[in-house]
Every structure is written in C-alpha cells, then in structure tokens.
C-alpha cells in the first residue's frame, strides 16, 4: 500500500527524518512511535505532501507520489487527521463532511449531468452513515467549533473517512483522551480495518498502540531504530532505552 524508501527531510541542519524505510501492507494497522521530535509528524506531512522530500521516494499503491500536490494525494486515497484538531470551525458538522467528499467517485457523482439525474442522493446517505458511525447524528447542524473536544476528534476522523481513503494516517488521535474514550477509539479503529482500510497510526499512548497495531516502527532522531510486533517492541532493548527508558527507570525506582 505505502512504501517509504530512504526518505529524508532536513530543515536547515536538523534532520527531522533521516533515511527512513517503512512499508505498510494492504489491510495492516502499523504503529509509528517515538519520543517527541523524533520525526513522526514530519513523516505524516511528507506522505500527505505538506512538506517536500529532501531525498528518497514515497510510493502509494506502486505509484511514485512525490510530485503530486497535497490535494491530489488526498483525492488518490490517502486521508489524515491532525495532531491538533483542525476542523472547519465556521461550518456545521454536516458541512465539514460535505466539503470532504472529494474522491473521484464523488466528483463524478457531482458532475453536471448526474446532478440532474439524481446521482446526488448517495452522497447524502454517506454523510448520514458517517454521522451515525461517529455518533454525531444529533449534532449535524451544530457549528464544528461548538463541539466538545471528544466530538471534534470524532468529527475529524469522520471527515477523513468522507474522502473515501484507502490509507488513513492518524496523527496522535488519542491525545487528550481518557481511557474510556481511548477504548471507544480502539473499537472504531478496528471497525475501520474491517471496512478494508489500511492505517498508519502515529501515537504516544501505548495503551492504544499496543492494543490495535499489527506492527510497530520506532523512530528516534528521524531514524528507525526498531520494527516488529507489539510484543517484540515491548521487549526491544534499544526501544526501552530510547523511548521507554525514562518510564522504565521510574517504574523500577518506584517498586
């Protein structure tokens, strides 16, 4: 599905991402973890095209997407959520989903002729089902900026889904959530996988990452220091040192 080959992005002297290799196969949920500033968000921005590559290659479904502008990549089937929620605050919940329907299939439905031939109806049904999926049906006419924090996160996920993605990039979706909400999020992510989505999950919250992912890649200083199943990663010495180090030491000190 997604292949990153020796991908680098430098900001001046800072190597935010440095020679990263990463493969996400169809239908997988891959976790991307690492300490703050290890290049996780930069990786998401490189895949979606908000940053350009310094070097390396990014292939999506076998096609080199480096030259494509952001909106083309998104129309091509990559969707994302943001670490700090970015909704369209002036728009209602409904409109937030409406403007996100930019997949080729939806664009065809909105074509001049299908508009008059009633092709629009499916578009509305999809919004309704997405609203139900994220439990926001009763808030559809509320302004997005008036939603509670958890609802905003759900809306952002629904908005990403409205683009009909094949690959979903979740940038710290559990940030600021309590453990009950994290549980619901886990359910939702697993449901998305059942729908055939491939997911790249960038996350700090181990509870979520360890629970849903098939594989985890660990970044530190822009480089991949480990990759494996959740169980392997938990045992990996390099990871413990780089990432869990502080926690592990604290835990030992406390016991």
């Amino acid at each position, binding site marked *: 599905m997604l292949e990153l080959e020796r991908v680098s992005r430098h900001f001046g002297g800072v190597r935010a991402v440095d020679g990263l290799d990463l493969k996400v196969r169809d239908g997988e949920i891959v976790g991307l973890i690492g300490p703050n500033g290890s290049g996780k968000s930069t990786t998401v921005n490189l895949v979606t095209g*908000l940053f350009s590559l310094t070097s390396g290659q990014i292939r999506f479904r076998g096609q080199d997407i480096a030259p494509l502008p952001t*909106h083309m990549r998104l129309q091509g089937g990559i*969707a994302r959520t943001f670490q700090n929620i970015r909704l*369209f605050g002036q*728009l209602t919940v409904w409109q937030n989903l409406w*403007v*996100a329907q930019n997949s080729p299939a939806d664009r065809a439905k909105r074509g001049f002729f299908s508009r008059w031939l009633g092709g629009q109806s499916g578009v509305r049904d999809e919004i309704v089902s997405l609203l139900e999926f994220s439990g926001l049906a009763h808030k559809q006419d509320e302004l997005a900026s008036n939603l509670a924090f958890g609802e905003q996160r759900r809306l952002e996920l629904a908005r990403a889904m*409205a683009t009909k993605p094949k690959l979903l990039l979740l940038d710290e979706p559990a940030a600021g959530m309590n453990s009950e909400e994290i549980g619901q999020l886990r359910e939702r992510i697993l449901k998305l996988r059942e729908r055939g989505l491939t997911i790249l999950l960038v996350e700090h919250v181990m509870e979520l990452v360890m629970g849903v992912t098939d594989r985890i890649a660990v970044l530190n200083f822009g480089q991949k220091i480990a990759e494996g199943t959740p169980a392997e990663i938990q045992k990996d010495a390099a990871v413990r040192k780089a990432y869990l180090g502080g926690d592990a030491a604290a835990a030992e000190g406390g016991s």
Partner: protein
Amino acid sequence: MEFYFGLAQTIGIHTLLGLSAYIILLTGQMSLAQAAFYAIGAYVSGMLTVLWGWHIVPAMFAGAALGAAAAAAVGFPALRVKGLMLVIATLAFGEGVRLFFFNFDYQVQKGNIKVGPLGGEGFRQIRYFPENGWTSDEVMLFVWVFVILVMAMIWWFDRSRYGSVLRAVGDDELAAQSVGINLTAVKVSAMAIGGAVAGLAGSLYAHYTTHIEHLAFGVLQSVFAIAYPIIGGLASVFGTLAAVIFVQGFLVEGLRFLGDWRNLLFGLLIIVAMVVRPNGFLDGQMLRNFKRWFGIRSRNA
C-alpha cells in the same frame, strides 16, 4: 423622484461591488483590486457600446468576462503568496490598472465629436441609455434586475457545497488541502467570480453616470468594496446589502448636510464597526437569531 432613482442605482451598483469582494473574502483572501475589475468592466463595456455600437447586455457580459479574466490573472501569481501579501499585490495591481486608464487614449470621430477614453480627461459621452430612449425608472429597474440576479446567484452558491468549500478554505487552508480540496481551483475561481461581478458593476456604473475617469477607480473604491461585506458580516449576502444601504443611504445621502465631513465619518465608522463587531454586523450568531425569529430552518435539519 429622480433623486431616489439615482440613490437606488448607486445602492445597487455598490451592492454588486460589495458582493464581488464578499465571495473572495469567503476564501479568506482580501482583494484591494476590486476597483480595477470595476474599471475594466466600465471601460470595456463603455467602449463596446459607444465606439462599436454594441447592445448593452452583451457589452456588459464582455465587461464581466474581462473583469473575471483580469481577476484570475491576478489570482494565479498571488496564490504563491498568502494573506497580507495578497492585500499588497492586489492594491498594487489596482493602482496599476488605474494608472493604465490614466494613460489610455483611444478616440474615434463620431459625427462632429470625438468619443472614447482620453487619458486623464476620462471617457465622456457614454450615452447608451439616453440615446436609446430609456427613462430613469427603466434604467433603475435594469440595474436592479442584475443586482437581484447576482445576489440570488451568490446566495445560492453560499448554500451549495461550493459555498461550504469556499468557507472551508477560508477557515483552514491546510485542513482543506488535506481533505482533497484543490486550493488553486477554489481561490482562482472565487477571484474570477468576484472579478466578473465587479466588471458587471463597472459596466452598469459607466452607463449610468455616462462619464468615467480614472479617479473613480482609486484605492478608496476598493476599500468601499471590501468594507461593505466586512462591516456587514460574512455570514450572509444580506449583510453586504445592509452595509451598503447604511453607508450609501444614511452616511452619504442622509447626512448630506454635513458636507465634506461625511468622508471623515466613513473612516471613523469602519474603525468603530471593527471595534464593536469585529465579525461584522450580520455574523453567524446574528444570522441564527434572525432565522429563529422568522422560523427559518436550516436545510439539513
């Protein structure tokens, strides 16, 4: 009566001018070149009817088309720059166009007089309406048919998905890109629509005043254009209309006894309006209140 016809026409034309800025403002861009598109519409349509004897309606559409083309042409390079840079770029473009018309001569002998634009002298004798025997109430009606058509069109845009897309881009460009919205297409199309509406307003203005000159298309006119929707609020096209009626009807005509001091009031009004209601008079909350009072339900409810 003539006076009120004149006032109604001014209000109509300024409403169009305000709406031309409104649609661009929805995408979060601020254009200070509206007077330039207005000027292009005025000169082009005026030349078509006076020099080449076109009917007014096709001449107006030609003016609108060229206004749109000019706006798209500004929109493209300006897309590389953001926000405040666009303000300056459009301001400079507007001044450039005004200076172009200041230097623009194209005169043709017609009967015993020469007609056509003559540099700083301006373009006199755009006498399509009197020559074809239109009465002033017919002219007013003609102007308002276009005002209502354009208002209805933009109101409809606003309710359609396109309107939501414009506002989405205005809200957060990055997020808009990230749901697959093509920023270039959205911004340039909004600029082009704004340019077309301004061009239309300009062609109505040229034929209604019969004499246009570069001074009428200065920065002040652009400021008027963006001030209407910003003072009126960006929640609905009616905010722009309300602002135009207030400024042209009350501030300019109603306070005529104040003479020159009215201009002073305009600057003051803008500042006070921004301090008191930074989101404009008819903001989202006000619009919802209105809807509730009049029992209008939103579409998806």
